[in-house]
């Protein structure tokens, strides 16, 4: 692990130092796998190359709990919450945003492959120049008056979602000197029970920044991290209009025993 890492957000180290740490951790993981340890499917919360994680991760292992009552249900969202046009990030400000227009489509599934229907999907992203609207984003790239980079939708009966947006740019951050995030779209998802709640990031295929990015690399398993990479789909690309990407999301669980009549997230079993 090398010497103890100092403060978070210091931007003191260069990419070579961070890349070496990333490689060391990956090597340790490979050795553990070779010794019969199971694959890690989630990111490590204790991942020092991501400097701001150092003081912000639990040091005690998570306590196993059987979900109870409220945890076996999810908040309900619907068209009271989300307008249909909120899934189109290109029409929100009276003009076309700059950049590569893209359609992004996929399904939200549970661990059994069952569609998560009628649930909330929220996304946020940088504009095509790699700039967020957020006031703390100091990257000197242009804001786009026609783009805020926020979208929402409610999944269909088959768990499907679809957004029309602009491909986000890569952007610099202060984890270390010359740190750049690969282009990504942030996703927030709900399942049919609260234990399935997840926030994650979707990436684009073939990004040269993957090996350098401690956030992407905090998922130490190659197969697992590739689950965050969308697939380019030319059949989804529309002529003279937009490129097509596809990305399915699989939630953990559910833990609740299902009966057929609650397949669309309705309540109605013994938990009441």
């Amino acid at each position: 692990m090398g010497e103890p890492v100092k403060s978070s957000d210091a931007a003191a180290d260069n990419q070579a130092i961070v890349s070496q740490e990333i490689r060391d951790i990956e090597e340790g993981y490979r050795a553990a796998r070779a010794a019969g340890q199971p694959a890690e499917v989630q990111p490590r919360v204790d991942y020092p190359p991501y400097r701001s994680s150092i003081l912000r991760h639990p040091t005690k292992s998570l306590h196993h709990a059987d979900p109870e009552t409220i945890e076996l249900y999810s908040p309900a969202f619907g068209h009271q919450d989300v307008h249909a046009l909120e899934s189109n990030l290109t029409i929100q400000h009276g003009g076309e945003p700059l950049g590569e227009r893209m359609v992004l489509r996929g399904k939200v599934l549970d661990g059994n492959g069952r569609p998560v229907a009628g649930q909330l999907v929220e996304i946020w992203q940088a504009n095509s120049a790699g700039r967020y609207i957020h006031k703390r984003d100091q990257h000197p790239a242009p804001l786009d008056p026609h783009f805020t980079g926020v979208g929402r939708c409610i999944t269909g009966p088959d768990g499907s979602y679809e957004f029309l947006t602009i491909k986000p740019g890569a952007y610099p951050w202060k984890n270390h000197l010359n740190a750049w995030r690969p282009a990504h779209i942030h996703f927030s998802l709900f399942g049919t029970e609260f234990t399935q709640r997840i926030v994650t990031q979707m990436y684009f295929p073939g990004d040269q920044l993957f090996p350098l990015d401690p956030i992407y690399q905090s998922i130490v398993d190659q197969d697992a991290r590739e689950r965050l990479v969308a697939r380019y789909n030319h059949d989804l690309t529309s002529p003279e209009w937009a490129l097509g990407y596809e990305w399915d999301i699989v939630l953990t669980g559910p833990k609740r025993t299902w009966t057929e009549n609650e397949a669309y997230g309705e309540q109605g079993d013994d938990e009441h």
Partner: protein
Amino acid sequence: MSTEKPVSTEKLTPTPGQTVGPFFGYALPFEKGGELVPAGSPNSIKLHGTVFDGNGAPIPDALVEIWQADSNGNIPNETGSLVRDGYTFTGWGRTPVGNTGKYVFSTVNPGPTEPGKAPFFAVAVFARGLMNRLFTRVYLPEDTEALENDALLSSLEPARRKTLIAERLADGSLHWDIRLQGEDETVFLDFHAEG
């Protein structure tokens, strides 16, 4: 990748989580996100506290969500959390912490979902620097017998158990701090044996 098993028995591997990052501020918070009931309305209470890091410093860029039964112990199934109409209780709220790491919800005390069960709020915590969301619970302090019989609480040592029980202040509010790391680190939960 094309094994022909029926979908119902196929266990898919979950998509990994990632940090919420620093720039969720204009995307995830929404108007009245922390007001499950209007602030100051009859029977409303405040659930409030601070999110701390491993040095005991407040975290200014965390986001807290709660999900709870109503005061009668019924699990809500009402839409409209994101656009609150002011009288429907949806049971779910979300609020970013302020610059000093403080969060506040206006809500009601959750009731016991079954007689004798200890009422709690389900909580999810997100922050820049936190690689994956954390689940926890915060229990109401009053029904000590129910707390003693609670399966989760009784599986914890007393010192750790108290990190999950809110303090009732004189003004009727519930005070509960979240410590991501350190001596009094909050107990965080794993429902799926993710490791």
